[in-house]
């Protein structure tokens, strides 16, 4: 009845509305500035990673050869050489760490996500896991030194692996918990409605569905510990020879880089660069593998 009170829509007027883009419009200007700002910040964030990779490839790439993987580290004025034993040692200790941390971490995550998410034990262990993610890695080494190295009477690959597993565990627990929580409630209800016990629900439905996320967590853990040197200083130490058993001092890439980079010999410094590049490549390969295997199948 009162058309006059209704707001006048642009289409009601005779004039055609202006739909063209104009920088004079403050809104468009602010939007443009913010977009450029976001671009710049993203670029700045990428600079450290790109420059590190560039340095590694330039400095270490020239020494890349099969010798690196088959030869032992050179002593003093020796020329050539490689760090095959350190590659084996690093992979071995990361493997030991994974064997310890993955089953414990995934089971703990299953408890946190499914069995007792709000229980006292669940809350406390979730909090402790979060604290442990920021745990100084050198303390993990000192701890294992006191518990294992002194008891065994020797530095060893086992002790190194245990120290790394302490650092790996919280990453695995927290990411695997998140992955399991992402499995839809209705899928879990369906399993229970079919007559699954809670254990069967976790094994047959939650684990397979959350597998990509769990693997991502494991890979994050591997990537975190593969380059650690501080915890290995007190546990695995170093060795110039091939490893013959798990109960002796063991070489690792990170300690080799640490040792060689401070030496006054060009050969060793070049090897340190090459070892850095190899370390980054190993982590990269693990990441790609986890993406291949961790792709959701369904």
């Amino acid at each position, binding site marked *: 009845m009162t058309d006059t009170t209704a707001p006048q829509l642009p289409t009601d007027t005779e004039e055609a509305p202006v739909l063209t883009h104009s920088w004079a419009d403050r809104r468009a200007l602010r939007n443009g500035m913010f977009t450029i700002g976001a671009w710049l910040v993203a670029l700045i964030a990428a600079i450290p990673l790109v420059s590190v990779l560039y340095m590694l490839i330039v400095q270490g790439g020239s020494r890349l050869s099969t010798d690196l993987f088959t030869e032992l580290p050179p002593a003093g004025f020796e020329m050539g050489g490689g760090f095959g034993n350190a590659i084996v040692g690093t992979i071995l200790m990361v493997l030991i760490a994974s064997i310890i941390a993955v089953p414990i971490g995934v089971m703990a995550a299953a408890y946190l996500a499914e069995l007792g998410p709000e229980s006292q034990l669940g809350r406390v262990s979730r909090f402790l896991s979060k604290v442990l993610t920021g745990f100084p890695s050198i303390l993990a080494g000192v701890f294992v030194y006191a518990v294992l190295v002194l008891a065994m009477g020797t530095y060893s690959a086992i002790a190194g692996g245990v120290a790394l597993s302490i650092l790996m565990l919280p990453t695995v627990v927290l990411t695997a918990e998140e992955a399991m929580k992402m499995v839809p409630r209705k899928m879990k209800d369906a*399993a229970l*409605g*079919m007559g699954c016990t809670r254990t069967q629900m976790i094994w047959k439905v939650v684990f397979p569905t959350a597998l990509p996320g769990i693997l991502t967590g494991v890979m994050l853990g591997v990537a975190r510990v593969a380059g650690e040197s501080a915890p290995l200083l007190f546990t695995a130490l170093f060795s110039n020879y091939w490893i013959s058993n798990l109960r002796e001092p063991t070489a690792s890439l990170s300690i080799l880089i640490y040792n060689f980079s401070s030496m006054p010999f060009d050969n060793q410094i070049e090897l340190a660069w090459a070892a850095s590049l190899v370390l980054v490549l190993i982590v990269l390969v693990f990441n790609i593998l986890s993406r291949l295997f961790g792709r959701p199948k369904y």
Partner: protein
Amino acid sequence: MTVVQPLKGDAPTKSASADGGDIAINCNVSKIYYGSFLAVRDARVAIHKGKITGFIGPSGCGKSTVLRSLNRMNDLIQGFRLEGDVHFLGQDIYAKNIDPVVVRRYIGMVFQQPNPFAMSIYDNVAFGLRLNKFKGNYDERVEHALRRAALWDEVKDKLKASGLSLSGGQQQRLCIARAVATEPTVLLMDEPCSALDPIATRRVEELMLELKDDYTIALVTHNMQQATRVADITAFFGVDISKGGRTGYLVEMGETEQIFQRPREQLTQEYVSGKFS
């Protein structure tokens, strides 16, 4: 434990009278609590063998709560407490020595939201068979279940494809196939069509009518027309707000035709004629 039943089409079960009349589930609930909240009172419902029993009523009347207490799915909810008993083929499933996990293998469930597992179509249907360590021809049972669910022709060439790749209506029929693969005695359906479009709804309704030859079905529906189309017997639940809370209770139950044409209660009359919903 051999929970997986023989195929119903192949070996018809013995006459119903052998295990206590034609009633599959005799639900005799006097009170259901969630914590201190009284959700349902006085719900005495008999689910007849080989028939579709529809539960209708306004929101919050406890029809889903009652349905979920028939296979102890409510046990999973914190603070759930039931007074009364629910007899399934003569046994009280709330008795102390009953394992709710086993109960759920005999009384299957189809949920409101289609919820296939993140597995292949085949594995979805075979899930219950594997769970019950079924020894026999899996391919045959899977095909039979998919045919029962009127899904076979649509998926027979892509059994390895993900169950999640199907459309909503197909997913719901896959869930029905998954539920019937182990040949449960009773099938509980909790608003199975509420997430589906009208065409998919129609297919699932046709399917229910076919399935009732072999299965006992209890169906919660928000849609009165659906109840008139498929239910043989209808239970009408109301909400009692007199004591401050919202407590559901059974108003009346009878042949669907009687409930909709000649309701005994004033409240039923008002509901089925659309005076409130």
